[in-house]
């Protein structure tokens, strides 16, 4: 079999291609973006299958659901917080069920590498009552994606694949198999199953409950949930899932007497296998990347009589952040090395920052100056490269919560008396979740100033195409009903500083809704264009 070097993300993408993928949808987000990047790169311009960036994750999820309705195989991928945005169709897709194979990939970011939180997608799969795979390595990422498509069709339900940053963004060789053909003719789903009127929905939900038994049986039989016996006399049992298995396995061979372990790659949790492990041991150690999902399940309310349970909840392992070879070794009672120290040397951090020449820098300079003289104003911001404007030397923004929240929070703030109330939002974030709150603000003619940073791309995540840029953005704003004399366009360049500051001042002084479009291309994509 052929071996190729793949990122964890790419292993999932190739698994999908080899499963007879008809269409894949996504919205960029670290650490999931490379799934779609890879799918696009292999799609032969869309001739092999559809691979598209979408305006946001909810839309991506629904497009994939449409493909599944039509009887063909679809995948949707995003970062963990993207699943919050897609939660409505995600949960309801478990009620309609899947017709063609439907795989949902959610990439968690323990350790906050590039995210606002460390939420654990396994809770969502449990909540929706569907199967979830948590691959431990690149080979499993590929193999389980293929399995996920087959099972989605077998059980008539979407299947989740949960990734974490260290798997998504590490490379290793993967053995790949023969590609399967696509599902040929569209075969539509049965209408009443897909029309979630209360009576239909209730019937479908009963059906979903019935199918839980099948899912559990599968998880019990699944070879990826592997039970391994202890060395004689060892009374420790380790329950370990996904990525965490690697840190455990790394130190396993260093243990003089080896514990039993149950490796989990598939949920719902295989209770029978767990009970078998429990019988053999006095102490249980739960190792998992993310929240204590399995651990809570195993502990229940009262623990297990006569057994000691260790994990994150008793702080045998850290309750936040990524696992490391050290934290896992310590939890198993092994000594760890401390490595070399640079004694007495003050090592400064090097946080990310705006590129030299970035248009956002000019915007923040002008905005800071325009706001001088107002002592109670506030700049609500959003997520993108411009969030780095929170750091020195700019210190220009005061909030960043979730995609689109700048506009809605600024409106709420204005209604609570914040003046001037300013929203700063990137073009892609505006398209993703800024349009609806702006419509809200138009409706109330709220007293706020929305600054849209149109740099022509989704810069933060690696320059994917933006849906809210250029002339179409201008038309969109007019179409939403923003008053034309309060739609201003400025070009953020040092030579325009005075002019831009003046325009921002005028709109801050206006007691109503204004939108200032700040337009200059991201220097990174400009550089790429020049080079190619």
């Amino acid at each position, binding site marked *: 079999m052929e*071996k190729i*070097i793949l990122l964890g993300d790419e292993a999932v993408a190739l698994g999908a291609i080899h499963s007879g993928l008809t269409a894949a949808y996504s919205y960029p987000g*670290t*650490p999931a*973006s*490379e799934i779609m990047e890879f799918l696009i790169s292999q799609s032969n311009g869309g001739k092999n299958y559809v691979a598209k960036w979408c305006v946001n994750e909810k839309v991506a999820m629904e497009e994939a659901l449409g493909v599944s309705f039509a009887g063909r195989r679809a995948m949707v991928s995003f970062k963990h917080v993207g699943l919050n945005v897609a939660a409505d169709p995600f949960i309801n897709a478990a009620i309609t069920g899947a017709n063609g194979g439907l795989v949902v990939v959610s990439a968690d970011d323990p350790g906050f*590498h*590039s995210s606002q939180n460390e939420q654990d997608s396994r809770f969502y799969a449990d909540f929706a009552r569907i199967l979830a795979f948590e691959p431990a*390595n690149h080979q499993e990422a590929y193999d389980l994606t293929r399995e996920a498509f087959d099972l989605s069709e077998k059980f008539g339900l979407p299947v989740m694949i949960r990734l974490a940053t*260290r*798997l998504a*963004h*590490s*490379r*290793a*060789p993967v053995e790949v198999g023969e590609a399967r053909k696509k599902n040929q003719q569209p075969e539509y789903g049965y209408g009443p199953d897909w029309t979630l009127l209360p009576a239909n929905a209730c019937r479908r939900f009963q059906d979903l409950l019935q199918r839980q038994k099948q899912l559990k049986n599968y998880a019990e039989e699944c070879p990826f949930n592997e039970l391994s016996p202890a060395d004689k006399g060892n009374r420790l049992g380790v329950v370990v899932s996904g*990525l965490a*298995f*690697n*840190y455990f*396995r*790394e130190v396993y061979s260093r243990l003089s007497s080896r514990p039993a372990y149950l490796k989990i790659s598939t949920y719902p949790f295989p209770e029978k296998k767990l009970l078998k492990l429990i019988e053999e041991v006095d102490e249980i150690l739960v190792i998992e990347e993310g929240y204590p999902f399995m651990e809570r399940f195993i502990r229940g309310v009262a623990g297990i009589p006569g057994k000691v349970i260790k994990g994150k909840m008793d702080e045998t392992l850290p309750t936040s952040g990524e696992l*490391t*070879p*050290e934290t896992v*070794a310590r939890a198993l009672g092994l000594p*760890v*090395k*401390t*490595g*070399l*120290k*640079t004694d007495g*040397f*003050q*090592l*400064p*951090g*090097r*946080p*990310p*920052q*705006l*590129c030299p020449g970035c248009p956002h820098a000019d915007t923040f300079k002008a905005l800071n100056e325009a706001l001088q003289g107002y002592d109670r104003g506030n700049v609500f911001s959003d997520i993108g*490269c411009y969030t*780095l404007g929170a750091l020195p030397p700019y210190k220009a923004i005061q909030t960043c919560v979730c995609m689109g929240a700048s506009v809605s929070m600024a409106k709420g703030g204005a209604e609570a008396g914040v003046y001037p109330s300013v929203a700063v939002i990137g073009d892609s974030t505006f398209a993703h979740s800024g349009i609806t709150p702006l419509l809200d603000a138009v409706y109330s003619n709220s007293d706020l100033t929305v600054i849209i940073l149109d740099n022509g791309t989704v810069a*933060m*995540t*690696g320059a994917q195409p933006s849906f809210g840029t250029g002339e179409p953005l201008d038309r969109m704003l007019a179409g939403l009903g923003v008053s034309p004399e309060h739609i201003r366009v400025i070009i953020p360049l040092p030579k325009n500083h005075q002019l831009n500051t003046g325009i921002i001042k005028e709109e801050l002084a206006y007691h109503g809704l204004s939108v200032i479009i700040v337009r200059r291309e991201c220097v990174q994509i400009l550089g790429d264009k020049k080079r190619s």
Partner: protein
Amino acid sequence: MTYNLILAGVGGQGILSIAFVIDQASLAEGHYFLQAEVHGMSQRGGAVQSHLRLSDTKIYSPLIPQGEADLILSVEPLEALRYFSYLKPRGTVISSRSPYLNIPDYPPLEDIYREIKKIPSSLLLEADRLAKEAGSLRAENMVVLGAASVFLPLKEENLKKFIEVLFRAKGEKVVNTNLKAFDLGRQAATGEQ
């Protein structure tokens, strides 16, 4: 045999290109390998690193344990220091001498060099000068790779083969510049040993 190496630098300095070459050469020579890298936020001028592990038996952890790195290979001197806690007692440090100045509190360069030189097996390269000599300042990453090639358990010809693969699409001139940068780095490492 397991060989652990940390690649270090600042976002945009071409660390992933070094990783690509080593990954491909490792596969070609039949090693197991795992390479964890950084994408996203910190690529914007922040500190970036990649953990790269080669072995002739199966390896599991994508992260190198503390005190287990055989080599720290850095395109920037301050960034080399950031990962010292990973270095084995007899590990090697190879770094470019040229600083990437984008923070207000960058320490005096001499202090950084002094810390690096405390490691018996360390090498500070004039990577910027050698890269320029090879034809492009952007080839600093290949200079440090060339120097590292003296230590890596990989064949020189395989590394060079994949430098060619990496830059092929950009034309012959870019390929030659990068190969030359590799050679100059390698010479610097063998000359000074």
